[in-house]
């Protein structure tokens, strides 16, 4: 089996998606910087997006079976837009937190009062 001559299948995309998802998860779990956690979330969302697009794609060996079709792309689109919204709010929270505490360490964020 030669990697370069074989056409890309759904599996390829799923592997990439899984890897991004897991790295995002690990990133969220290990980073102490709030912005770092946010980056983990972005990675997770992208991993999921890759799966959506791949399942909806006509070119990845699923053409004859039941695919997500355009729905996959639409869901990915919605995820991207929501990710933008989520990032805006999360950053606003981080900045607000930073203004009040002069730190972005999530481990120190243990009080509810702002």
């Amino acid at each position: 089996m030669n990697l370069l001559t074989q056409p890309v299948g759904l599996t390829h995309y799923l592997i990439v998606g899984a890897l991004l998802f897991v790295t995002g998860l690990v990133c969220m779990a290990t980073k102490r910087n709030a912005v770092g956690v946010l980056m983990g979330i972005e990675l997770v969302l992208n991993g999921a997006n890759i799966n959506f697009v791949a399942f909806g794609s006509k070119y990845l060996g699923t053409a004859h079976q039941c695919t997500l079709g355009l729905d996959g792309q639409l869901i990915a689109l919605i995820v991207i837009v929501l990710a933008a919204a989520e990032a805006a709010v999360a950053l606003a929270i981080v900045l607000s937190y930073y203004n009040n505490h002069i730190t972005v360490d999530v481990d120190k964020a243990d009080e509810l009062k702002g």
Partner: protein
Amino acid sequence: MAIEKIGRNPVEQDVYTDEMLLNMGPQHPSTHGVLRLLLRTDGEIVLEATPHIGYLHRCAEKIGEKVTARQFIPYTDRLDYLASMNMNLGWALAVEKLLGLEVSKKTQHLRVIMCELNRIASHLVAACTYGLDLGSFTPFVWAFREREKIVNLFESVCGARLTYSYLTVGGVTADLPNGWLGECEGFLDQFNRSVDELHALLTSNAIFIRRTAGIGVLSPEMAIAYGCTGPVLRGSGVDWDLRRDGDPWYTQMYDGYEFDIIAETNGRYPNYQDYPPIPSVAVLGDCWHRFYVRMLEVMQSIRIIRQAMDRYSSADGEVGGPVKIKEKLAKGQVYLETEAPKGQMGFMVVGNGTAIPWRTRIRSSSFCNLSVTSELCRGCLIGDMPAVVGSLDIVLGEIDR
């Protein structure tokens, strides 16, 4: 100090940012030489600006106590090197007053021509580098083109293009060459149009107005308290010019000349209808007014030069030559201030009967004008720094001496 007080800048602080210490200069394109401004900034907002000077210190005053009074003339060239004629004049008048030496009327008219020409040249440099500070390159070249013509005139008079040493103790080094007055006349005739071009490019340009109007407002009280002089003082609406209000030893040069002191009174400048209108956003004492005053003073200088040329050619007698190089100074002390393009330039000379002054001191106009920088820049944006510093029109050669 609350945010409202930092003034007219519509920038609010939204994030807790670190204060940053920023060295603006001594190698910075818009500090006009080797000025170093230490800025304490919060983001783009300047909280504090501290000028640090001394990078161009050459012991000019001490040198003045080691050479004879006439030998010191070339050193005065290097004080405000953009207005060397005026520097020469200041020193020459102070020493002449100490000597009690009165020069002929013809010499005085010649000196007026030279000083006013050099005032035009200096104001042109101020105006064009101000454009450069605000990011407009073209007026710089246009104004330098005009300045070049003045420098050519000076060159044909004394051979030098920057450090003239032309006006000297006792008179001038040489009389005018043949045909010089005609050339000068020709220059003045075409110069009006060039000033209009500069008005179009800068004074009445919408972006220029937005960059300068209301920025760096210097109140008349503060201007007087800090000892600001020259266009900086008059830009704040103080009607004060040594050519009219100065020492009689100096003002006699301008006796009988018709010219206006450019200072705003009742919201109007003299002959305001000939020039671009004052924009509604401009505040008296802001950068725009300081710039405007310079542009208008150029026109007054033209008036003076035309009168002086007439008087010079109709005056009888000879032009005075320099005194002996080792002319002995009288005992006593003289302090004389003259109206240089950048402000009041004062020379103090103390004689003890020898040819070499016992004491020489220089009062620099740019030095006092620079001292308001930290006051004017508090709370402005970094982008306003060149606008404010440029509008003060400082020359480091004079400040550091």
